[in-house]
């Protein structure tokens, strides 16, 4: 997603100074009950411990790493350096710490700083600085991609130590020297990239009892590329806040406070029922808010860090709603192990999704419609007045974001929000007409009667299509067999399953057949058939044969498409069986090339001689569509459509014969003719390949005949009768 990830090197001073107590205490006392607490009060000095400065820094650094890894995963480019600890293998510096666990392992292997000071502490720091700049110049995995020559290689060095003016000056000088020499080196060495921007952040860490000179950072431009920032921080909460400020600034992250999270609480607890959880995420998440109004309307300052407050909304937790989102970023709770955060994350990890709601939009950022609209002066219909009121009330509820987990990753989505969803008012279909002038809105309204989903469902073979959906529901594949693209398998499956499958219930008898015949329709779809499968298919065929001999009723659907005028029951039954065999032949023929077994089954059907002609045209007519627009021309040239439509109008009769909705009119049933008639008609419709000459002309393919005739005859026969110049071939075919 983000191609411009900054590298970050964190240097921890391991000198004796950091072995000093920080003033931050920890308590191993277990607070079970009030009574025990009182009792333990006596022993408090036995349970209270003091953290060293070192401990405080490690805590902070690990928190920094944790947030980065949660949000950027493999892209969190972190290198940890502890002065005096040798880590010479530069080549792996961006692969060394791939997750928080590895960072922890690194610290677990380091002894706490020694209380006796070493003489060469300053040299060790200088060495680490050199190491840091070398690391920043080393290619990360992404930079190894050859075409990334113009990659902007930028990085951050954060140095936790103690500083005085002299020391700062030395570090700045050293950093500059190392930086320049490395950039020179980068010109000659391929595995080095020049550092184009580097922020050197110095954090002066002090024990709690030492005051800090200023809480504001001090900036200094060393060179145009190298910037230095100095923070002062007392160990503990202040250091943590500084770390958070640095983190947000360096990696362009921001905080959001999810407020009003309802949580079930045991009755005894006195705390309130609603909680706030702070989450960290890329700053881009807030961009959508800026379009509405300046962020200040939702901003709050919490412990010196600003956060945007969004309200938890109990609108819907159903992840099966498809929200209109346009961006998604990972996020991480700020205090991940707190009870509130754990509650939120567990809720999301269980699969729910939560909409976040915006507090009220300030008046100055929205148009007050009543103020600007002047209803006395201009015309406003009642309709619009009603929509007006809904607009104003709806402004009170604006969903701006959604939090959700994707395969155990927490994400925050920005929702395309507005108080009005125009999509919901769109008509049910797109109407093509041949009118030059448009229809009035009322006429349209009448045409666009909503189609009830339940009514549709009755006629369509939904169950069978749902089976296809299930078969081709996509899942990620971990391993890939070489040369095969999994998604193409899905396309092949879809092709196979829809090859000879009717869309409408009233088009088929075969697919309504009970067991064991239904085995035929499912087994044939397989790519390989076992001997067992083949015999099952043959049994199914034999079964139908027996049914026919015994004169059993077939499950002919209501309003069957091919019902004919034949009235007697016997004839009807024969007709149905004839159709069924025809259908079986057509169905199996579609798959006969799959394997020898398929061919064997097909041969078996042919041998039964139940059907006479082999016909290529589909017997499920609704599967084929007549395109309303020419498919090769996307432009909606109105003249083209009109002509096309006229053609279609001529074929209107044919069209009506293929309607999937019921034939409730008896006259139409009679008009549908016998099956034989239909097949004959079908044969005639079978299209011959287009003549080359005709194909050159656009539909409706009017081709001038005797093109040169006109010029010649005009010479020889100037007042002769004009020959007919064009003829509509399509009429003759």
């Amino acid at each position, binding site marked *: *997603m983000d191609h411009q990830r900054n590298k970050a090197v964190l240097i921890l001073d391991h000198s004796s100074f950091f072995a000093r107590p920080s003033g931050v205490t920890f*308590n*191993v006392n277990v*607070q079970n009950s009030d009574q025990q607490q009182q009792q333990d009060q006596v022993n408090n000095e036995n349970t209270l*411990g003091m953290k060293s400065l070192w*401990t405080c820094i*490690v805590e902070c650094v*690990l*928190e920094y790493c944790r947030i980065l*890894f*949660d949000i950027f995963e493999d892209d969190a480019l972190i290198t940890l350096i502890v002065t005096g600890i040798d880590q010479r293998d530069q080549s792996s510096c961006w692969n060394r710490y791939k997750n928080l*666990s590895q960072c922890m392992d690194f610290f*677990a292997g380091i002894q706490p700083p020694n209380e006796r000071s070493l003489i060469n502490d300053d040299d060790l720091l200088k060495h680490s600085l050199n190491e840091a700049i070398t690391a920043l110049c080393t290619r990360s995995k992404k930079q190894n991609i050859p075409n990334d020559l113009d990659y902007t290689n930028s990085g951050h060095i954060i140095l936790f130590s103690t500083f005085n003016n002299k020391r700062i000056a030395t570090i700045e000088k050293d950093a500059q020297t190392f930086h320049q020499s490395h950039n020179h080196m980068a010109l000659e060495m391929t595995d080095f990239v020049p550092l184009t921007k580097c922020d050197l952040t110095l954090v002066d860490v002090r024990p709690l009892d030492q005051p800090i000179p200023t809480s504001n950072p001090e900036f200094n431009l060393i060179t145009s590329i190298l910037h230095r920032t100095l923070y002062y921080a007392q160990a503990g909460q202040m250091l943590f806040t500084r770390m958070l400020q640095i983190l947000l600034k360096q990696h362009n992250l921001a905080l959001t406070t999810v407020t009003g999270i309802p949580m079930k609480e045991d009755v005894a607890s006195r705390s309130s029922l609603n909680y706030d959880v702070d989450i960290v995420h890329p700053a881009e998440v807030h961009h959508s808010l800026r*379009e509405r109004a300046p962020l200040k309307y939702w901003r709050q300052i919490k412990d010196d860090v600003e956060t945007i407050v969004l309200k938890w909304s109990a609108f819907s937790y159903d*992840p*099966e709603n498809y929200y*209109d989102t346009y*961006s*998604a970023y990972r996020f991480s*709770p700020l205090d*991940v*192990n707190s009870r509130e955060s754990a509650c939120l994350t567990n809720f999301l990890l269980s*699969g729910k999704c939560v909409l976040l709601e915006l507090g009220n939009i300030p008046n100055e950022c*929205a*148009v007050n*419609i009543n103020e600007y*609209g002047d209803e006395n002066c201009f015309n406003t219909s009642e309709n619009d007045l009603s*929509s007006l009121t809904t607009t104003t009330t709806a402004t009170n509820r604006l969903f701006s974001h959604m939090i959700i987990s994707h395969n155990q990753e927490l994400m925050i989505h920005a929702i395309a929000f507005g108080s009005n*969803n125009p999509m919901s*008012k*769109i008509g049910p279909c*797109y109407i093509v*007409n041949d009118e030059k002038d448009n*229809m009035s*809105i009322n006429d349209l309204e009448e045409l*666009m009667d909503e189609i009830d*989903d339940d009514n549709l469902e009755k006629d*369509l073979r939904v169950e069978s*299509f*749902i089976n296809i959906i*299930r*078969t081709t529901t*996509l*899942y*990620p594949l971990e391993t890939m067999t070489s040369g095969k693209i*999994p*998604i193409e398998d899905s*396309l092949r499956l*879809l*092709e196979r399953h*829809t090859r000879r499958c009717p*869309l409408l219930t009233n088009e088929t008898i075969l697919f309504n057949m009970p067991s064991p015949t239904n085995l035929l329709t*499912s087994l044939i779809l397989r790519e390989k058939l*076992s001997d067992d499968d083949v015999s099952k298919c043959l049994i199914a065929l034999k079964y139908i044969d027996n049914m026919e001999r015994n004169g059993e009723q077939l499950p002919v659907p209501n309003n069957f498409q091919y019902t004919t005028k034949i009235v007697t029951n016997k004839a009807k039954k024969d007709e149905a069986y004839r159709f069924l065999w025809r259908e079986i032949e057509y169905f199996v023929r579609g798959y006969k090339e799959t394997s020898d077994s398929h061919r064997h089954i097909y041969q078996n059907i042919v041998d039964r001689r139940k059907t006479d002609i082999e016909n290529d045209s589909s017997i499920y007519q609704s*599967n084929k*569509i007549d*395109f*309303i*627009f020419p498919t090769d021309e996307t432009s909606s040239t109105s003249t083209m459509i009109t002509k096309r439509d006229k053609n279609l109008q001529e074929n209107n009769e044919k069209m009506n014969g293929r*309607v999937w909705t019921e034939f409730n009119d008896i006259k139409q049933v009679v008009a549908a003719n016998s099956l034989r008639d239909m097949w004959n008609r079908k044969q005639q419709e079978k299209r011959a390949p287009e003549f080359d000459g005709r194909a050159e002309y656009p539909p409706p393919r009017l081709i001038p005949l005797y093109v040169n005739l006109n010029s010649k005859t005009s010479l020889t026969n100037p007042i002769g009768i004009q020959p007919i110049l064009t003829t509509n071939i399509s009429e003759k075919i």
Partner: protein
Amino acid sequence: MATTMNIEKRSLVAKIIESLMTNTNSPTKLETIALVFFAGRDTIKIVQHFTKNTDDIIKSVQKLPIFGDFSLKSAIDFAKKYLTTTFGGQRSQKILVFTDSSHRDDDPIKESTYNNSNQMDIDLRKVITNDERDKTSLSNSTTDISFVCIRKPSSSDRARLEDITEQTQCSFSKIYWLLNRDVENNTTITNEMIQDVITQIKSDIMDVFISILKCGHYESQLAVYPKIKPAILQTTGELLQPSNTLTVNGFIELSSIRSAMATSKHILLPIQRYTRPQPPMPMFATKKSAISSSSSSSTTATANSSLTTQKKSNAANNFYYLLLISLKKEKSAALISVNDQWFGAIHCQKFERKKKSSRLILSVFEPGDCIPWISSFERLGPYALVFPPANNSELVYKKQQWPVKPFARSYTETFLIWCRQNNFQNDINKFVRASAKLPDKVNIFHRELNKICRGAFIYGLRDRLFHLLRQLFQHQIQTNKIKPDGIKYVQNVIMYMNRLSSSDRYIKYEETSA
């Protein structure tokens, strides 16, 4: 019929809008339009709120009064704000500004000698829902502005319009004009001129994309609205055009695709062919009977019944409806390819207007694999192959979990984060409480022990912490908080901590080491 320039510019603009309105009444009913009138820096009025009824717009236009000067910038600013208020700001919106293009009071340098007694601008806004920002254009702004001018603007006027657009942070789209003052000298504006401009505007903003939806051998033709815009494949920088055919590649459950972010959303509508019959007796034909279709065999049929027959004769939409119903019932989405390496998803959305009616909505994703939780579209395989049924049996579908990327996230796994006092306290509490339950749940006690000891090493706390813990446990034993059977475990642990304090590195506590 020719209209001469003598008429007020106001009525000319009114005429353009009127004509545009009559023509834009597109069969989809997709657009909603508002009219904002502005005259003078302080006089901005919403003449007509967003409506679908174009007649209202026309009526409003005809009633527009005459005002004096104006400021274009504030008008556009206002229009933008109005749009954001009503629809939100993420999807692109369109503003059409009607202006006479020359001479601005807010721009004294360009004072000209034109007589602008009746100058006015009308701002007509057309919101096309969820039309995504044009990725190919340089500007990131989501609001497009087009200007409709009476005369072709001079280059300086044009520059000024572009400048205003930039100031308001919109993207400049196009200028239309009626009279080309460079070429033509005549001062008459004919209806044809208006028509020409209208056709242009219409084709630019109202274009519906006709596409074929394909799924194996099933096909359906449908209208995609708004048009899918070409997009750039980030990995190669290649510009991809949407193909005419949307091919269904497979399906993904809605609970797995989880509102994947889309660059644009489109509504898919089935196409209804509607041919107006030639009324047998046109003289007597009322408006209603004219609509009634001739497809009904009897001309005497009432308008209503013939309309219904008309509606039903749409065999071409079978697949559309089949997909719609199936997706709705199965709570699934169809993964479609718009082009090579460019995917989208179709899902079924219920509509507010009538509870039982739904539409298909297409979400177009950014080209390439840009959805973090779907690492690669091409690596998605069909259920039948990913989870093949055993022993040649029938395929039974059972929803499967998507694989979780093996990455240790701090919120899914327990990490020792000790930078807050209560985090540390919780971990210690768990440990000490586990000790009280000994000899039951030894495993839990040892697990907590290992956690704490590792933490002590990580945070460089071992001397102090182990010392305190040893004291604590001795105290616990003295005060009989540890069950007699558990004491030996605790004593083992105290010994282990003793050893650890002098060790260089963390060694996991194991039963055998005791």
